[in-house]
């Protein structure tokens, strides 16, 4: 029973990691850039959710609040790409890494100025509610998180596999030049992807704030862990990101419980290093050796 209980909370946590990892994968899939500010965008989304939903701020209904937060962060992502990231379009991947790290620092600072540095929680309609199945206690928050994540992953998976826009995104990720020749507006596609990843980050953020408390510096380490999740799954694979998130989420509480103290915290990273060393492309690898 104990194990099942740990498993439930691990899965719910893992879903948030998975959602954030989805954001990484989206951007990687479309432009092969890695957004090191993803964790900070999630933090921003969480604070937007708190602002719209909490009674001490705007006091809007939960669904309206989450939609507004997602839209605003989506717009933020679009504008970010349009006015900042497009300036280094075509430069090596590494430039983007540095740029997004710097962006993360800036977002953290701005959030600290606006919302302060005290941990804040989201007031959800299902706060404190639990379902009891036998001896197992399932918080409704966890259930909501799991359902949202599964639904979002399914939608995104079909979006990439079936729609024109999704296929265009995949094409531009494989070879921007060739995609451009085929009439795909590569730059606009990039901006749309950033918007999409902003939306996903906002949803992940709201879930995060519903389950725990959010403060400006939360994004860095959470982002790195989600990143570990994306890498474990293999950057570029949506189901892989979700699976990696779940793995990280499940490994964490179990390692904390059954391994000596101190080892538990680093378990996700050790897992990631092992995956990287043994299967460099992640579990769902998309990298193939270049033939010269």
């Amino acid at each position, binding site marked *: 029973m104990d194990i099942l209980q740990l498993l439930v909370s691990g899965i719910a946590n893992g879903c948030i990691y998975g959602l954030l990892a989805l954001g990484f994968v989206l951007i990687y899939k479309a*432009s*092969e850039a*890695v957004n090191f500010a993803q964790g900070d965008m999630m933090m921003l989304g969480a604070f937007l959710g708190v602002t719209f939903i909490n009674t001490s701020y705007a006091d809007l209904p939960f669904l309206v609040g989450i939609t507004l937060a997602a839209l605003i962060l989506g717009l933020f992502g679009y504008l970010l790409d349009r006015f*900042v990231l497009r*300036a*280094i379009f*075509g*430069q090596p*991947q*590494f*430039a983007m*890494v*540095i*740029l997004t*790290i*710097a*962006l*993360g*620092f*800036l977002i*953290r*600072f*701005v959030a*600290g*100025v606006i919302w302060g*540095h005290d941990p804040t929680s989201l007031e959800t309609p299902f706060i404190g509610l639990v379902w009891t199945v036998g001896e197992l206690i399932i918080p409704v928050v966890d259930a909501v998180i799991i359902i949202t994540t599964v639904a979002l992953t399914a939608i995104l998976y079909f979006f990439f596999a079936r729609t024109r826009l999704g296929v265009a995104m995949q094409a531009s*990720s*494989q*070879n*921007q*030049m060739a995609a*451009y020749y085929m009439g795909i507006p590569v730059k606009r596609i990039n901006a749309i992807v950033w918007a999409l990843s902003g939306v996903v980050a906002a949803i992940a953020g709201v879930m995060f704030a519903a389950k725990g408390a959010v403060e400006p510096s939360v994004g*860095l380490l959470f982002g*790195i862990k989600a*990143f*570990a999740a994306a*890498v474990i799954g293999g*950057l*570029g694979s949506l189901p892989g990101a979700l699976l990696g998130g779940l793995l990280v989420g499940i490994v964490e509480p179990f390692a904390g419980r059954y391994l000596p103290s*101190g*080892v538990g*915290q*680093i378990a996700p*990273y*050790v897992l*990631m*290093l092992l995956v*990287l*060393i043994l299967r*460099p492309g992640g579990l769902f690898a*998309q*990298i*193939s*050796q*270049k033939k*010269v």
Partner: protein
Amino acid sequence: MSNRFKSRYDDDINLFEGRWHLAQYAILMALLVAAPWLLGTYYLGELTAVLVWSLAGLGLMLISGHTGQVSLGHAAFMAIGAFTNLALMLRGWHFLPALLASAVTSGVIGAIISRPILRMSGIYLAIATLALSIIIEDVAIIAEPITGGVAGVFAPPIALFGMEIDRYATPEAFYYLCLAVLVLVTLGYLNLLRSASGRSFLAVRDSEVSARALGVNVARAKTLSFSLSCAITGLAGALYAHLAQAVNYESFLVLISITLLLQVVIGGLGSVHGAFFGAIVVVLLPQLIAIARDFFDNAAGIKIAAYPGMDTALFALLILLMVIYEPRGLYGVWFKVRTWLQLFPLYRKGMFRRTRTYLKTERQR
């Protein structure tokens, strides 16, 4: 503007291009040696910090700037160097052997780690080294006999050549110690860069495939570069431990790794000058902000102090502008200014225009 005709092959690899170049560095060296008389104790301490971070930056520059393998985890090797040095000194070793030991330990650990890690490249390497840095944070807590656990260890005073060197009691002596180490390492670094090994590093950076085609053992070059880079960073870590006087796991957070990389980028990847420029910015920016804060508080009545983390934010903004407008970093700016001066009336606007490139996929490597 001077024209130099190269008449011997040595002209290409000489450390100094002629007398004037040598004289410039002699003047710089003289200024640095005279610094204790020119600066107050506080600014001497800051200058010492610049030297230590330059050393760490040099270490990272070797692997990231000159071999093209981006590492986001070099604070881990600073930690290894620092803890090795302090642990050995507390067990009765002299400073110099302990300093050498910290370089060797970091280098050897780096070499062991590099084999599996350097099989990755690009973004995966950055992530793996980032994970390494996070893991070392926790190892620093767990390995209590060496690292003192959560509390950390205090640096004992250094006894060298019959002198007692302490950061606070004899700041000049500590400054000269750091300067000596840095100058030796820099000379070694420049020598390495003009040797066959150094050239193979550059070849690996520019194109792994063509380096391999030219007979460079890519795996060996990467491992050598990574391990030397770790050794230099380990030295910097040991000096940092004596500069800070006490270190624990918090001295080498993953944030330090990230800052170190940003420092190298802001200085200018792929140039030895860059490591120094970056260190100057990283150490002196908080000072500048403190001075600006006093000015604004008194003159304009704007309370900057109400916004914590201002220095990090400004630093980030600087990086942002740098990546967009001047990817070669401060070295690039300096290079342009120098060229403008050398060519005085003849400088043309498009001289350093970047060529447009399109992203090629990294999924096929």
